[in-house]
Structures are given as C-alpha cells and as structure tokens.
C-alpha cells in the first residue's frame, strides 16, 4: 500500500508529530510511506524518522530562519489567509495561508498514493474539499471534538463527512463524532497513538521524583500541579517535581512554586528527546490537564513501569488508567484530591511497585506493531 501522511510540519515537536513519525515508521515495514509537510520549519526533524519513510515539504515556513529565498509570488501569497480552513484553526497553526493551500491543492490533485491521512482539523478540511476519490481520504482527530471551537465544529459538521474515514483517540470522542456526523458504523474508529518501537527502561520506583511532561501551555495546568505537589512537599521535603517541556507558561509555573515556597523542589527541566528515559528515573508521573486528547504521557509512563495520578478529565485518562491497578484517577479539577492521590503513592512504596508492574503490562497494547496491525485492518476494510 502507498500511504501518505499530511502534517503541518514534521520538523517540529509535539504529540501529533511524534505519533505520526512512530506510526509511519511502523507502517513502513510493509508499505511505502511518505510524510508530507505543509510548511517546513527547520533543516531536520526534531524526532528521528525511520529512513524508509520519505519526507517531503510543499513549502518552506516563514518562521524558518534558514529557508531558501522564496519567489515574490509566494511571499505575496503567504501573507494572504487560507480560505478553506476554519479561522480559529488558521490562527492556531501558522502553516495555513494562501500559499500552502495552493501548494496542497496541486499536490492532492496529482498525488499517486492509495491512502492520504490528514492529521489535524484544518488538514482534514482541505483533504475533504480538495482531495480526489483516486485514493482513500482519512482524517485524524488528535485532540477531541469537545476541545474544538464552534467554528471548527461547524466546519467538521459541514465538510468532514466527505472523508472516507476518521480515526479518533478515545471511545468517548468516537461517540461524540457519531452524534455529530451521520456516517455508517465503522466509518470512525478509535485508534490509540502508538508507543515508538524502542528498548524501554524500567523504573526502580525508588527516587523521590514526581515527573510530568508536555508543552507548558494553559490546558496542561502545571501551576495547579505545583499546588497539588505542595501537599507532598510539606510532608516529604526530599521529593521533587520535575516538569519536562517548554512553553509560554514557564513563568507562571515558577511564580506558583515561589509563592508556595517550593523553590528547589519544582524543577523546570526543559524539553527532552528521551521522555521515557527521564520518566524511568521517577517514581510517579502526574497529569493536571483540563483536558487531554489522548494522554500519551500516561502511555509513556506505563512503558517504563511508572504509575500515573491524574484528574479524571475528558477524555484520555479515564480510558487509559484503571484506578487502583495502574494509577489513580481523582475527581476532575479537584486539586486537593490530586495532592492526596500523589501523597498516597509517595507514602506507599509497595503499592507503587504493584501498580508499576501492572502499568508496564498494559503498555504492551500500545506497542507500534499492535497499532500498525489495527491500521492495516482498518485501511484494508475501507479500501474494500
């Protein structure tokens, strides 16, 4: 099968990029796979890409300092807004403009492939409106429907039913899509993000470290996690909260740590290429998000045998964590309960060990070979 992934920019860093790179690498074992970026933003991808996967970029991003000099026409076009994507989506992602829209239109008209998989709502819209029926057109939802703004939901309602299929990350989201779009059973499918194929370490669960990882953005609510961690810090001064990632909320997290006297105990580690390696040094992983598309952080923690404590927020954590078995789910947005959950596992090393073993076992079902098999079955069925 010839499979094409459409992505904003594969050279960046983020959950969608990471899972696309992993999935493409897995599929490349038996298929011809390419990842097509709408706008290239760097010389090399942040995540290592399987050499069997072909990389292609339709344009060079304005944000890339090292980009080749574009033509005058391109420079003019890229200042004009995209017309086929919802306004909020165009504002969220700098890859959408008239130049990229035109380049994608040309690409989709001529693409010699069996399947095109788009990876965000704007790309799903463009694939639905500009794609050809010479290939299977599959959309992907990497967040969830409820996280999308009204204009994006309206776009989905009006255009995305033209796609040949849609993958979502959770069953809850699949039900939401089924209620919104009148499509036959099996059109949308729950497809988890894959765990990249790698040798994962196993945490000893002995270090006084609680870890978390993600972009430092409001939806992750890391200042709230710092508040919850204060309860652990008060009772166990050795314990440390490590936050991996970067983003605009860094100052707010630091300010909350200072306000609560947790300087030295809250460490802003910056971003890392080896999230699982860092999680393996921790004894707990914590999530404080307002909402999650999936919760890849949870799967990564499980891969190295670390239990997770999370808010029961929509949608991912509830479908990944079995409370009391491989982690704890606490009432959504209840900061005291999050602190109490962390404290419980900090103080009970035996429970951590038991949960860590169950977590590692569960992570097997997210291995890339399992997910690839599900993709193959789905694509074969849709092609049929």
């Amino acid at each position, binding site marked *: 099968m010839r499979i094409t992934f459409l992505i904003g920019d594969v050279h960046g860093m983020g959950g969608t990029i990471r899972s696309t790179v992993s999935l493409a690498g897995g599929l490349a074992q038996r298929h011809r796979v390419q990842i097509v970026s709408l706008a290239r933003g760097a010389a090399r991808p942040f995540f290592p890409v399987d050499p069997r996967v072909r990389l292609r970029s339709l344009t060079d991003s304005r944000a890339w300092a090292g980009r080749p000099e574009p033509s005058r026409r391109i420079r003019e076009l890229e200042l004009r807004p995209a017309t086929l994507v919802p306004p909020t989506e165009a504002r969220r992602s700098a890859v959408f403009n008239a130049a990229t829209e035109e380049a994608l239109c040309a690409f989709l008209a001529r693409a010699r492939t069996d399947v095109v998989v788009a990876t965000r709502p704007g790309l799903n819209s463009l694939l639905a409106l500009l794609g050809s029926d010479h290939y299977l057109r599959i959309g992907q939802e990497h967040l969830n429907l409820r996280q999308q703004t009204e204009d994006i939901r309206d776009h989905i309602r009006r255009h995305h039913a033209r796609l040949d299929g849609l993958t979502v990350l959770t069953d809850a989201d699949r039900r939401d899509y089924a209620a919104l779009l009148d499509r036959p059973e099996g059109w949308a499918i729950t497809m988890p993000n894959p765990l990249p194929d790698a040798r*994962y*370490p*196993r945490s000893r669960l*002995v*270090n006084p470290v609680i870890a978390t990882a993600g972009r430092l953005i409001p939806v992750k609510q890391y200042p709230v996690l710092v508040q919850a961690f204060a309860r652990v810090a008060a009772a166990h001064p050795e314990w440390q909260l490590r936050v991996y990632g970067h983003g605009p909320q860094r100052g707010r997290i630091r300010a909350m740590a200072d306000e609560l006297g947790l300087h030295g105990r809250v460490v*802003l*580690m910056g971003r890392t290429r080896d999230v699982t*390696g860092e999680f393996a*040094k921790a004894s707990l992983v914590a999530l404080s998000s307002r909402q999650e598309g999936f919760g890849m952080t949870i799967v990564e923690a499980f891969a*190295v045998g670390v239990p997770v404590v999370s808010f029961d927020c929509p949608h991912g954590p509830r479908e990944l964590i079995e409370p009391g078995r491989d982690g704890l789910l606490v009432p959504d947005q209840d900061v005291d309960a999050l602190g109490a959950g962390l404290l419980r596992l900090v103080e009970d090393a035996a429970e951590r060990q038991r949960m860590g073993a169950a977590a590692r076992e569960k992570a097997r079902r997210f291995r890339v070979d399992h997910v690839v098999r599900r993709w193959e079955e789905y694509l074969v069925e849709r092609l049929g």
Partner: protein
Amino acid sequence: MRVQMSRVRVDDILELDLAEPARTGAQVVLRPVGGRTAPLRGRRMRTWVGGRRAYVDLRWEPLTEGTWAVRWSEPGRSSRQMWTDDPCYDLAARREYAARPSRREVAALRAPDGRLLVRVRRVRPYAEVREVEVRDATVRITGFLAHTAPPDTSTAAELLVRQRDRATAFAFPAGLAQEVFRCAVPLPPLARAHAHDRPHNEWDLWLRVPGRERGYRLRALCDDIVGKKGRVAFPTTAVRTDSGAVDLRPYFTAADGLSLLGTGAGPRPPSGGGAED
C-alpha cells in the same frame, strides 16, 4: 545480553542481574567510546558469574577517564553489547557513593538507546548541597562533604562567602557533624558590601574545615540534573542599605556551584516589603 539491573556499588564492583543465565567462563569486556586518546582495544575485566548474577571488578583495573561500552564475552564467541533495562539512577545510592573518600568516580549509565555504559572520571572533594532555604533575609544550607573523609569529631567549620573578582569575603559559622554540614548566610552584610559600580555581584560559597588546607566549594552534583542554572530557581530577598536596595538570591552557576547573586535595585525603596538592614 540484556540486564535488568546494573549498578556500581560503593566498592566499585559493577553488579549485574542478567536476563538469561550466563555460560561458564563468561566475562565482561569494556570498550572505550568516543575520545581520540582512548585505546582502541577493549579491556577484559575480572568477572564472577553465578546463574543470572554477575560481578565485575572495576577497582584495580587502570581504566582511563572516559566512557566505556560494556560488552559480554563468552568462550568461543565474539563479544556483544550489553543492554540494560535499568535507568541507572538511584539518588540515595549516588549520595552514599559520593560520601566516601575517593579521587575517582565510576558509574553505570544507560544510553538513551539502552546501551549499558560505564563512566570513569576524576573527582575532587567538594561540599554537596542537599537543601537551600531562603527565609528572613538568611540563606540556610545543608549538605555533606563529598569524596573526602569527614573529620574525626564534630567540629566548628566556617562558610566562606567570597565576592567574585574582589577581595571582599565574609566567614560565617558552620556546623559539621561527621560529613553533614549546616550553615546560614545572613544577607544584610553582603548587601552592605555590594559594589554598586557593577551591575551584578556574585558571591561564591566555600566550606572551610579546621586542619584542612583547601576549602570545599559548595556544589550540587549528586543528582542527574547537569546544568541547574535556569532549571532550579530561588526567591529574591530585597535588602535595604544606606547606599540603596540590593536584591540577593542563591543561584546555581554553569558548573552547578552554589553562589549568591546581588543586584543593585536602585534607590532606597519606601519602608515595608524588604528586609531591614
């Protein structure tokens, strides 16, 4: 060969839990990675093997400084890389290791791809910082002497606070019980000595132990966070002086030394909010 546990004990024995039983006569070979001056050939290490457990003697072999790939060699077969499931990080064990006198540190490491490595490096005695607390215009620090023997009895040590690139220095009392030290730095004297002609005044911290020729620089090296500057931050205390307000805060230097940073905060602020000189 895959190992489930890999650690270097305080007596420099590498302990390995093997994923499969070892064959008779198996041995660990260390092969240098990187570095142009390292010898190209691997070194066969004294190895004791029993079932799924192996012990490798890293005490006496003249391993040069650097990083070594750990390989598994069995009779009649060429050696193969060892892979570890162990993250090779145990903070308590690292502190225990650092608390003993030594000029050389041997550590097991896990590369991001899972390869088992051994790192050998020369170390110098220093004062490992465990906790820093900023309260009431005073910085309180606890820690322990690393890579050196503690004094025979509890003793009154001194914390030397030395202004970088200047001759000014203060000495404050520090307690030393075995290897554990505790000290406090009152900030007002530092604020009064602030050189307002410089945008920043850095004060480096050293522990001085009676009878020891050299002081011990305060550093935080035991954990796995290399480069704490910008990752770990401490609050600022504003101290008023006759020549203007001075903001002071602890910080980690690029080499993970603990220092204090003074910044002239301009003219004297209105009363309230800052610490009184």
